[in-house]
């Protein structure tokens, strides 16, 4: 067990749009059962890193390794197989607007499982109930509120009981109570299905409430400058910028001490 490779490893990744380098030399593992947070100021490339990990953008250099298997060098069949073990929610939800919530959740089930239609409907009801949306099966994404859409996206992400859950800004735009409920939900899901969670966020309350490990991407030096438990980093990081980020110190102070 000790020798098992971590579920995700980012190796020497450089991200770039053309000649413009966003982040370079990213190197970190994400361990089994972690709730891992990718944090950093606006525009530092958090969401871009997530898209690299999801294989939506190919890295300019380096590799993303899932349980010892390279994603970048895998052929499309292998990539597809790896992707079936993931659940993902996007910043804007990413629900298919032309389908009802039930159809959204049903799509991966139809593709990759052999449930009967009746079993499928029961699973859909269960997944929606987990996020508090049972009864909304026949609603279209445009007919429900933004917070509900985020939760519906989460229901779709967990439809296949994934090994790895990716969240892009899960609580952005949610009120504090919904946001806390979402955090609790993430922790419960993680514990019940034993998934590893990777999330991009800069909501400090939710970082301290649930994160067990993190990486900080710096926009100025264009690389990662801290890795570890965010509570540790807040109190003991050698990097002033990281401490200030995690304690919400004012921008003026950052300018002076950075």
């Amino acid at each position: 067990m000790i020798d098992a490779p971590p579920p995700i490893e980012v190796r020497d990744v450089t991200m770039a749009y053309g000649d413009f380098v966003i982040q370079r030399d990213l190197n970190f593992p994400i361990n089994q059962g972690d709730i891992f947070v990718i944090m950093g100021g606006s525009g530092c490339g958090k969401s871009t890193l997530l898209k690299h990990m999801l294989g939506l953008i190919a890295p300019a250099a380096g590799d993303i390794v899932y349980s010892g298997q390279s994603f970048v060098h895998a052929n499309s069949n292998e990539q597809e197989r790896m992707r079936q073990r993931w659940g993902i929610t996007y910043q804007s939800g990413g629900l298919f607007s032309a389908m009802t919530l039930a159809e959204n959740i049903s799509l991966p089930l139809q593709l990759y499982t052999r449930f009967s239609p009746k079993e499928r409907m029961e699973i859909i009801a269960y997944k929606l109930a987990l996020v508090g949306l049972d009864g909304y099966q026949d609603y279209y994404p445009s007919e429900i509120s933004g917070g509900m859409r985020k939760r519906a996206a989460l229901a779709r992400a967990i439809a296949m009981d994934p090994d790895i859950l990716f969240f892009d800004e899960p609580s952005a735009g949610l009120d504090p109570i919904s946001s806390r409920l979402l955090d609790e939900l993430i922790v419960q899901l993680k514990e019940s299905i034993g998934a590893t969670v990777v999330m991009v966020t800069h909501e400090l309350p939710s970082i301290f409430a649930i994160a067990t490990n993190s990486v900080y991407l710096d926009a100025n030096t264009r690389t990662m400058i801290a890795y570890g438990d965010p509570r540790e980093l807040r109190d003991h990081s050698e990097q002033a910028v990281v401490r200030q980020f995690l304690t919400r110190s004012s921008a003026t102070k950052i300018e002076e001490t950075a």
Partner: protein
Amino acid sequence: MSDTAPVFQLDTTQSDTLILALTGDWIQGAGAPDFNDLRTNLNALSPKTLIVHFDNIEQWDSILMAFLLQCSNHCQDKGIALDTTSLPESAQRLLDVATAVRPHQRPEPGDYHWLTSINPLRMLKATMGNIRESLAFIGEVAMALANLVVGKANTRYVDFRAFCYQSGPDAFAIISLISILVGMILGYLGAVQLQQFGAGIYVADLVVIGTLREMGALMTAVVMAGRTGAAYAAQLGTMQTNEEIDAIVTLGISPMEFLVVPRMLALVVMMPLLTIYADVLGILGGALVAGGMGITPLQYFNQASAAVEMNHIMVGLIKSVTFALLIAVAGCRSGINSGRSSAAVGQAATQAVVTAIIYLIVADAAINILCQQLDY
């Protein structure tokens, strides 16, 4: 409230330390001084320290802050120490917030000459890139279609049915109107000329051949390019913006099979049907004109049915299938490659229609030349 004009005065008794005295009401509409005047003075004197004195200012608003911010930025650029301790606390705090982050310096764009935009090599490269992209798209579509044939594609029949309805029955009204009118136009065009030779009855032949071989398919295609091609581009572009296409990819589904194939097949199935419908209405349109020229409906339809030949109909149908493929490719390609903003979706829709119409005209000409050579 006494409205006194806002002014600044520069005390230059000490050459190293200047005192900037601000007086008056620094409010909107009071005619605040131009910072450039102060800049000229500061550049001429190049002091080490600038002390702002805030005297007798009763009212101030963002005008004052804008002036102070320029002052502060200038001092920072020139390495002048700025002393703003005499400002009221609220203004002091606003200035702190405004100066917390230095103004962003946009990187200098590289040497760019307008001639480079018409550099033939560059244009060739761009065109080649475009063609390669198109070919890659067509190749991916072909692979998706191959998967569909062997039954491995993630294409949903419900989607196909919905798109058939959108691109077929929904288009009846506009297609009816356009094809009747085009039939009438062909009728007038022929009737005026043919009557001069006493050959008015041949207007039926002209309308039939013109509609079946050319106008039926082409006008249907132009309408569908504007209607359905643009809709496809807008749908897919919006899905790109909403990260729906990302979600499809990460679910392990090919967007080609899931999104492009049902749209394309729907058009390929519906366009020939619409073309036949347009052909019939076009010939009826011609009959209306012929009636006005003193040709009885019986005469017209007698003459017309003699002119209808299978190869005319086939040419029209071959064209309509070709056009359907081209419209779907143009629409879906623009949509899938769309950027992620509302402006980009608009561009994608425009590009879809423009590209589709160019494709249509070129393909139409090519098919006509081919038919002429083959004597078909």
